[in-house]
């Protein structure tokens, strides 16, 4: 079993503090969901865990199996077992999807123990079939000209190929139609097991109908303000963030309405 711990995390970007003391502990075998209004720092949290250099950690720790990962560069964190399904995956011309995924898998293996082409293709074909992806997707350039849905599907394909300990899914449901949402959920559910944990970041309860979380955290004003089980998401659906905020007696200004 692996453990990911976030302890009193404060993070800023461009000199502005976004996360103001986030605490979260998760184990493999668990699915956590983080919900929260716009501008509350959900994406900041996911990018900081992965190590995006744009974000500055002001205070606190992130530990993977007891080891502080804040000093590790992005690629090392990935090899240690973290994965971030991104909201806006980069497009890379001239690099095929298959070539990229093979490089990612081989980055985790010793020089003299690289995955064979046959073994790789077998795994790739199997995962792509599972996600209803056409074969030509593997030979297309990485995310180039992919539709929003194709990009998200491709993120899940990578997740299933790389098989990390912990996956963070940053608004994987945004811009997806119901069919794509089902496929993406199917992929994540397939990964579910004792050696896999996920942190699902979403605005909407809808995704959680397909991927039922063990824990739901609500984030507001750069902090996790309350934690519950799957029913919390349902409550949120009924009461809205304002309802939860007032119930908790929090003095947080919700920027959601203004930003829209």
């Amino acid at each position, binding site marked *: 079993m692996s453990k990911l711990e976030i302890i009193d995390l404060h993070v800023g970007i461009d000199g502005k503090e976004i996360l103001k003391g986030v605490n979260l502990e998760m184990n493999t075998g668990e699915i956590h969901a983080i919900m929260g209004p716009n501008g509350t720092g959900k994406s900041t949290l996911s990018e900081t865990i*992965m*190590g*995006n*250099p744009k974000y500055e950690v002001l205070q606190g720790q992130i530990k993977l199996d007891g080891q502080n990962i804040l000093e590790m*560069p*992005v*690629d090392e964190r*990935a*090899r240690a077992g973290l*994965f*971030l399904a*991104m909201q806006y*995956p*980069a*497009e*890379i*011309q*001239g*690099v095929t999807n298959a*070539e*990229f*995924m093979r*490089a*990612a898998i081989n*980055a*985790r293996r010793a020089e003299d123990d690289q995955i064979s082409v046959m073994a790789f293709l077998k795994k790739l074909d199997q995962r792509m079939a599972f996600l209803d992806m056409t074969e030509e997707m593997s030979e297309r*350039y*990485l995310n180039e000209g992919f539709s929003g849905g194709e990009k998200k599907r491709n993120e899940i394909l*990578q997740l299933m190929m*790389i098989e990390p300990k912990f996956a963070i899914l940053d608004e994987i449901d945004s811009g997806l139609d119901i069919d794509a949402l089902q496929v993406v959920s199917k992929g994540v559910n397939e990964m579910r097991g004792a050696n896999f944990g996920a942190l699902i970041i979403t605005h909407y309860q809808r995704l959680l109908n397909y991927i039922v979380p063990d824990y739901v955290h609500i984030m507001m004003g750069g902090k996790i303000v309350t934690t519950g089980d799957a029913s919390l998401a349902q409550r949120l659906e009924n009461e809205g963030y304002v309802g939860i905020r007032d119930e908790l007696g929090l003095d947080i200004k919700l920027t959601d309405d203004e930003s829209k």
Partner: protein
Amino acid sequence: MTEETTMPQFEEYDYGFSDDVQPVFSTGRGLTEDVVRAISREKKEPQWMLDFRLKSFHAYEKMPMPDFGPDLSDLDLEHMLYYQKATDKQYRDWEDVPDKIKETFDRLGVPEAERKYLAGSSAQYESEVVYHNMREEFEKLGIIFTDMDTGLREYPEIVQEYFSTLVKPTDNKFSALNSAVWSGGTFIYVPKGVRTDIPIQSYFRINAENSGQFERTLIIVDEGASVNYVEGCTAPNYSSDSLHAAVVEVFVKRDGYCRYTTIQNWSKNVYSLETKRAQAMENATMEWVDGNLGSKMTMKYPSVYLDGEGARGTMLSIAVAGEGVDQDSGARMIHAAPNTSSSIVSKSIAKDGGAVDYRGTVRFERDSDGSFAHVECDTIIMDDRSSSDTIPYNTILNGNVSMEHEAKVSKISEEQLYYLMSRGISEAKATEMIIMGFVEPFTKELPMEYAVELNRLISYEMEGSVG
């Protein structure tokens, strides 16, 4: 991003070895009329060629250095070797090639290429062709593929008809120099209607220190014929400067097709100053595929004169400039007939203080109704010490033409790096993948072996560039 301390430093030039082959004949250093006469005499040339050389030499003496592009003031033309010959006979059978020379080719991978798919090979060593092999198929088809000296001896009428009709000695100082002292190069004639997909290949290599290499290539693709010519160049790494001043002339007749692919990987002391020109007649297609890595300075602007209605000309190039390298290259498309089209796609990478400039010309003559040109320049600058400029010259003398020009200069995208690294790929490998992806539109046009070699060369160039 953190420092990658285990990264290997900039690789030694990979092919920077030199052999102790004693030339059989050399004119010594410097250039005089006597040297020009000696070259012609040694080659037992006809009078018209000697006259041509002498006329060119006198033009060369009078002509100024180019008034644009990189600074050539360190180029020491006084102390250069202008002609030398490594062996005094030509070899057709690989077994007969002297071991020393063979070793050089071995290290360049020529025999391997040969085994796999070489259709006919003439590999230039020093200034003469020492190894020449032509596949029976070419002979059966009537394709002439030989070195230029042999071409002049055996096919004087064809040579005399075309030689120097596209590139005049007075075109520029280095075409004049080449015209005076040219030696070696390739001669190809493809008869009417003969089409072959097998690439014809040739390797070039400068070996002796300070030796100039002035090859002269003449390709004639007759009506409805096609040819795919591939030339690869590598040179050993010497301490003082070497000059490569080639002249290439390509004639593509009506409905003909020619693709001319070059990969140059000169060591970082070579001046590569070339004049390459093609003429495309009615509905003919001329394609230049041009890869330039290394050299100290490159000035090269292959051109296509679109002289027949419906003629097409394309240029696809990649230039990589590292430390101490100045790549000034581009293309020239001259639309001189109606409904002609041209496309220039130039990709460049500058790093470690290298300079890579695109200098190109598109010209629509009065009689170019309905013609179209597309120019696309795409550059990656890897660090703040490196530079790139795009210098397009466009002349439009006809109102009914269209032209597109796109230019983009960027750095390695942080977003792309982050994305690849977030999947566990190291920064160095991620950078390499992005660069390889950037040059992919070029490499995919190359024969497989060249693509592999180019990828390997670029990957060497990129090592040590991160962190």
